[in-house]
């Protein structure tokens, strides 16, 4: 559930430092999770799959690679909390319309499988300031 709410409305934008682009992301689950439960955040933009190594996850000021999330046993992604997911890509996304998909895979302890919940949204990247 919460599929349609994973990507925070209107949050897709290029990062200020020009190193890539990012969006606000909420956990598609009914309770907060310790970060080690996040098995994957698979991102697709305009049909192109982003390599896992290019993705960063930031919550309350701490930034992790997806591999680092897997061994983080204290820090949490809280219920309804907006984390920042960023994609390393020099220059970010070109200005204009884009379609972004984020698929979050969680290892839920009482389920024998790891559910994947996915959200797709259109986003407009404004032209860079001249």
């Amino acid at each position, binding site marked *: *559930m919460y599929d349609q709410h994973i990507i925070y409305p209107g949050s897709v934008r290029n990062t200020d430092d020009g190193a890539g682009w990012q969006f606000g992301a909420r956990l598609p689950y009914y309770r907060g999770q*310790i970060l080690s439960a996040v098995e994957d955040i698979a991102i697709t933009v305009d049909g192109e799959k982003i390599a896992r190594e290019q993705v960063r996850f930031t919550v309350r000021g701490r930034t992790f690679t997806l591999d680092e999330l897997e061994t983080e046993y204290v820090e949490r992604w809280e219920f*309804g909390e907006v984390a920042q997911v960023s994609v390393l890509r020099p220059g970010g996304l070109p200005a204009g319309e884009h379609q972004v998909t984020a698929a979050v895979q969680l290892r839920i302890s009482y389920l024998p499988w790891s559910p994947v919940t996915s959200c797709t949204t259109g986003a407009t990247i404004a032209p860079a300031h001249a």
Partner: protein
Amino acid sequence: MTTPHDIKRGVSLYSYQYETFLRRMTLDDCIAHAASLGARGIEVVSEQSFTGFPDVPQAQIDGWFDSLERHGAYAQCHDMFLDVKLYKDRKLNFEEMVTSLKRDLRFAKRLGCRNVRVIVNTPPEVVVACVPLAEELDVRMGIEVHSPFHFDHPWILRYTELTRATGSDHVGYVPDMGMYTKNYPPVFRDRFLRLGATPKIVEYILEAHAARVLADYVLMDVRKLGGNAVDLQMAETLRHNIWSNPRRMLEFMPWIFNIHAKFYEIDDSGREPAIPYEEIIPVLIEGGYQGHLSSEYEGQRHIEDAFEVDGREQVRRQQDMFKRLLGEA
């Protein structure tokens, strides 16, 4: 006129999760709403309503007690989880599980809850190992008997065997009324249709459900009928949303500490079309149940793709139904 009884009303804040997630309700709003309905026993999924679990900042705990007091409500139950898969490469061992449950017992005490909902995947040996601490803290542990489990499932039979052998009255059950899904929930059906289920196969599944056909057989039949992935997903729900006999609670009544009054929808006529509370509540009265009927609205996940979720209205309707069936006012 209704038989005298001592059943109390409450709400699990799980019911307002959608509004909480979207930051449209605060913890105080949730407590205020429940209390405004006279549902004063508050159950909380702590990892949903607080942050930093298990080290929830004291300010949040203070806020919790302030809200309860201000609205005339009280803490009833803390819903505990057991993260057996915390580590990707191994499951928690016995000692780690015991430590986890003990942590939750202490957290419940900190919240002022007399009851802990123990999630159903918790091994009974772990619960048994925590009995001394539960008694010391006077916090009761109730395994959530949750569909597809039921009181006569081997997993629960084993729990009963091991926990009753302790002789403790601090270990028992929190039955979730989802195991009494007598009629197929209309909100499930409608969502599967929206997702692309085949109307004729949907019809078939509804008939098979009404005839109580073994779920495995329905699944095989749906495959034979050429069902698509959504049809198969709908057939799978027959495995997970079961009907059993509410009268089976009678045998376990002394150890039922709380009831998850699960519901998917209260319709305009004021009834839960799937879960027959008009059958369930008389059983609770007959058995002398003294705990809470704790509203647990779970319709949001079945309608969010197409409709506005309104947890408050749904809880209000269920509490109205409870008042009627409990003979209040």
